[in-house]
């Protein structure tokens, strides 16, 4: 009770410090007055009485100090004092303070930026209401491939599952919009189950979403629009709800408009009920293309729901062995399915990178503090001799670290916010895969920031503080603060820190080099495609109108002819998929080789029109490309790429060899009328340079077929022309309208844009890696500079003696550089070891380029050498310009 009272009273004192001081002063005055009165009454003169009163009272300042110690919280008072002193000391050494704050700011900033991204993706996750309660359901087929869920399976699952409050399915497909007084256009659409929007917790801003009765076969067609489409196509018409538009040639009523930036489930601009998906009801049980997710009922555990769905799947598979034998369910939280888990090697590596950077910057600051502590030995010795305890000295140094860390944390906050902003704007709007992530700072991120800042001080300011506080007062004061070699221990420590810093930098550089290499287009053909002059666009043929493959073949042939006739157009072609835009996967069979069922050989295939390679600006190294003289009725040909020739023919000439391709599964519903290619032998007539269809770092084995053979319902056009895209675009529309006025062209982009968009992930990660690399190198340079400069400072006398004895400048530089090179070499060797551990820990990375490959490591070594030279220049110059006399007499 009393203790509490005292504490409260002291707390109050802290607040009332000034008033209490005034009170004491007044009391003392009054006391002295009374004493003086008495002495005067005894007959002393006023002056003598006053002096006597003071004598009797004792030391006023001592009393005041005593009183102050009683009053308030002495620790608090001392802390404020220490903080004030720390700020003064740092202010006196601005170079040091600025460097330390910059270094800490960068380290903490990078760390926090990475954590913000990690937090947004894996912890906060997709912008779904209580996202951790939403599970994504897919199937694993008999070949262990992950597939979607078929409509029939979905219906069974939804009917039987009790763990879910709601279960919905969706599938994406572009639709054609018309009948509203505007030109026909194609837009990305999602066909979604009723209640899908309420499941994710998003409601239309006007109108309503789909109800159960809207999602039944035979229900009147309804659509929901995105805000973007509502604005761009319908001029933000407030009366849009209730209006009728034509979607895929069918009149449909607009019932709602979704809020901005909700492209759920990916980039949908328009939504239709799932039941409206063409041919859905006729789909077979093994057409597994729907994506399914459900919200758990309250109180149901994920494991229980998973077990239930697996049970249902097993039961269905027993009832339908012909289609569902060995088909299993995969049930995972939706965010984990798309963003991965926090414990995934990729995310772990991501966060570990953040930790590395902060450790490097911390080690750096420790070195700066070591260097500074040695300069301050005399000050510390004097403080100690005046009665400062070791704890007090340590506390003072730690508080200086704390002040630095607070400033560094603040700088880090700024750096992180700026970094996240840059990261966000680097993501192209139109390719964002799943919604917008919220990269704003939340409590978690803030706590991480503060935690890291505090930890940095404790870990890296503590050791220098312990060392400095151990200063041998007598030795320092006696030696006049002479900088001899009596401070071996901190020297060793700072060398250790520096080596550790180098090792970690090597790890960062090596892994960053990999990211940069993966992202960089390294294939010659990537550069060969003259992307600027190619305009691309996509056209889709509605199955209602273009039923037969002959109709589609005719359409593509006529289109290619008409486009080629546009003045200024140099070359045109069509393809089922543009470079970097994916490809179909089919099973390969090579004539004369046994078909090994266990060792399946999937290859990517692209259907292209005549002059495809010429339009891309490529020439075939061997053979020829398809020409308009190659008719579907004639012999079937194929062109393979170099990767294919290398993989299947050991680089020998494959021309004249025969191959066959078979689709691995029934045709996808997005291409319902695409006939499965007949298993015919294709004769290879040419080899093509490696053009990447996917953004994978290495080219895939690829087979090109004439588009006439597959006649896909959708194809991309390629037009090479000197005319600018703005002028060319209406000309293309005109030619298309001449063939079929109801068909819209969409995804009109230059080839350059197509490749740029396809590379955004790589580009961002490579930029991130580049920035991290630059920061790491900068930090290491600062670290090496600080340590070298400090060593030169320490050795001034020694160097002076050497110069006086006739050492040549090169020898002096040698003394300095040798040391730096030694530290660098040890750090590099340790770094290689750490990189190997890193590669082993987070081995999910690229198979093609490992961080332990010699090439990235050579790059890193070269970089570090440049760094060492940079860091040594200034100290070395200072050393060779030393005036030996002044140097020897220093101190």
């Amino acid at each position, binding site marked *: 009770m009393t203790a509490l009272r005292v504490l409260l*009273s002291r707390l109050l004192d802290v607040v009332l410090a000034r008033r209490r001081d005034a009170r004491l002063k*007044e*009391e003392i005055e*009054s*006391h002295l007055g*009374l004493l003086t009165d008495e002495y005067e009454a005894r007959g002393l003169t006023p002056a003598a009485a006053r002096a006597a009163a003071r004598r009797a*009272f004792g030391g*006023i300042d001592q009393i005041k100090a*005593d009183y102050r110690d*009683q009053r308030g919280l002495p620790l608090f008072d001392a802390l404020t004092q220490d903080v004030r002193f720390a700020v003064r000391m740092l202010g006196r050494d601005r170079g040091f303070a600025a460097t330390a704050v910059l270094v800490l700011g960068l380290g903490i900033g990078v760390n926090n930026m990475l954590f913000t991204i990690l937090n947004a993706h894996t912890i906060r996750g997709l912008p779904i209401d209580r996202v951790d309660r939403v599970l994504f359901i897919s199937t694993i087929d008999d070949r262990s491939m992950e597939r979607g869920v078929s409509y029939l399976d979905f219906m069974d699952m939804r009917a039987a599952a009790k763990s879910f409050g709601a279960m919905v399915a969706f599938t994406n497909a572009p639709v054609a919009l018309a009948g509203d007084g505007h030109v026909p256009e194609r837009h990305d659409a999602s066909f979604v189950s009723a209640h899908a929007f309420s499941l994710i917790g998003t409601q239309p801003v006007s109108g309503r979403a789909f109800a159960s009765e809207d999602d039944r076969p035979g229900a009147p067609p309804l659509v929901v629009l995105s805000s973007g489409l509502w604005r761009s196509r319908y001029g933000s018409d407030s009366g849009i709800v209730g209006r009728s538009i034509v979607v895929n040639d069918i009149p449909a009523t607009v019932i709602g408009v979704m809020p901005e930036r909700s492209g759920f489930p990916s980039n949908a601009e328009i939504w239709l009920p799932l039941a409206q998906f063409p041919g859905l009801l006729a789909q077979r049980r093994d057409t597994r293309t729907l994506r399914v997710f459900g919200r758990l009922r309250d109180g149901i555990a994920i494991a229980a729901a998973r077990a239930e769905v697996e049970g249902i799947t097993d039961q269905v598979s027993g009832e339908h062995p012909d289609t569902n034998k060995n088909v299993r369910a995969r049930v995972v939280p939706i965010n984990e399915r798309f963003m991965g888990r926090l414990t995934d090697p990729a995310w772990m590596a991501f966060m570990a990178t953040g930790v590395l950077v902060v450790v490097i910057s911390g080690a750096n600051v420790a070195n700066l503090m070591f260097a500074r502590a040695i300069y301050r030995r005399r000050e510390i010795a004097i403080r100690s001799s005046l009665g400062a305890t070791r704890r007090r000295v340590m506390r003072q140094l730690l508080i200086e670290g704390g002040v630095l860390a607070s400033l560094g944390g603040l700088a880090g906050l700024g750096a992180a916010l700026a970094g996240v902003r840059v990261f966000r704007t680097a993501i192209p709007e139109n390719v964002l895969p799943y919604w917008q992530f919220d990269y704003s700072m939340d409590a978690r991120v803030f706590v991480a920031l503060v935690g890291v800042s505090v930890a940095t001080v404790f870990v890296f300011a503590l050791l220098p503080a312990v060392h400095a506080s151990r200063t041998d007062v007598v030795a320092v004061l006696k030696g006049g603060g002479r900088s001899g070699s009596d401070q071996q221990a901190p020297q060793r420590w700072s060398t250790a820190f520096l080596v550790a810093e180098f090792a970690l930098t090597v790890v960062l550089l090596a892994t960053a080099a990999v990211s940069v290499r993966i992202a960089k287009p390294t294939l010659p053909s990537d550069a060969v495609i003259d992307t600027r002059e190619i305009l691309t666009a996509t056209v889709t043929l509605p199955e209602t109108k273009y039923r037969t493959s002959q109709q589609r073949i005719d359409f593509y042939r006529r289109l290619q002819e008409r486009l080629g006739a546009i003045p200024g157009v140099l070359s045109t072609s069509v393809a089922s998929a543009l470079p970097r835009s994916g490809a179909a996967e089919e099973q390969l069979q090579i004539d004369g080789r046994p078909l090994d069922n266990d060792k399946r050989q999937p290859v990517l295939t692209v259907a292209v029109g005549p002059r495809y390679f010429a339009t891309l600006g490529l020439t075939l190294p061997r053979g020829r490309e398809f020409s308009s003289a190659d008719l579907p009725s004639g012999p079937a040909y194929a062109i393979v790429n170099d990767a294919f020739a290398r993989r299947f023919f050991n680089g020998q000439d494959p021309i004249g060899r025969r191959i066959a391709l078979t689709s691995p599964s029934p045709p996808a519903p997005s291409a319902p009328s695409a006939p499965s290619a007949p298993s015919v032998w294709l004769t290879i007539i040419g080899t093509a340079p490696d053009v990447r269809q996917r953004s994978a770092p290495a080219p895939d084995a690829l087979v090109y077929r004439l588009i006439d053979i597959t006649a896909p319902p959708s194809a991309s056009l390629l037009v090479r022309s000197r005319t600018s895209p703005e002028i060319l675009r209406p000309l293309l529309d005109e030619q298309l309208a001449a063939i079929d006025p109801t068909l819209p062209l969409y995804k009109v982009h230059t080839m350059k844009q197509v490749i740029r968009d396809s590379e955004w992930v790589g580009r961002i990660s490579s930029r991130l890696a580049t920035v991290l690399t630059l920061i790491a190198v900068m930090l290491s340079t600062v670290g090496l500079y600080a340590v070298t400069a400090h060593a030169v400072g320490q050795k001034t006398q020694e160097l002076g003696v050497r110069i006086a004895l006739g050492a040549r400048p090169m020898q002096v530089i040698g003394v300095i550089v040798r040391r730096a090179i030694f530290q660098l070499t040890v750090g590099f060797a340790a770094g290689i070891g750490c990189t190997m551990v890193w590669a082993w820990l987070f081995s999910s990375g690229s198979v093609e380029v490992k961080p332990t490959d010699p090439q990235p490591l050579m790059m890193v070594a070269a970089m570090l050498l440049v760094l060492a030279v940079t860091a040594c220049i200034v100290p070395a110059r200072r050393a060779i310009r030393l005036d030996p006399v002044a140097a020897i007499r220093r101190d």
Partner: protein
Amino acid sequence: MSSTEAEVPYGTLDLMVLKTLAAMGPLHGYGIARRIEQVSDGGLALNQGTIYPALLRLEQKGWIKSAWGTSDNNRRARYYSITAAGRRQLAAEAQLWARTVSIVNRLLSQE
């Protein structure tokens, strides 16, 4: 400082202040110091100023309270008075002191 003047034993100043206030009623710092000097009859080396940290300590513990007042010769002074808790504390400490003294005395009077 002559050897006949004893140092104030640690902790006893508080007790002396409490006793003085209990016996004399409200007093200012000077009055308390004077009183203690009188009672010790010059046998105690007391820097009068040291009384103030002690007063603060006692006030923080709630054993005394203080208020501004005017002295006999018309000077503004802060008057301290003992609280009920202070009286209880005084009784307890006086008892403890007496016991301690008797033990020490007994020890010293042996042989």
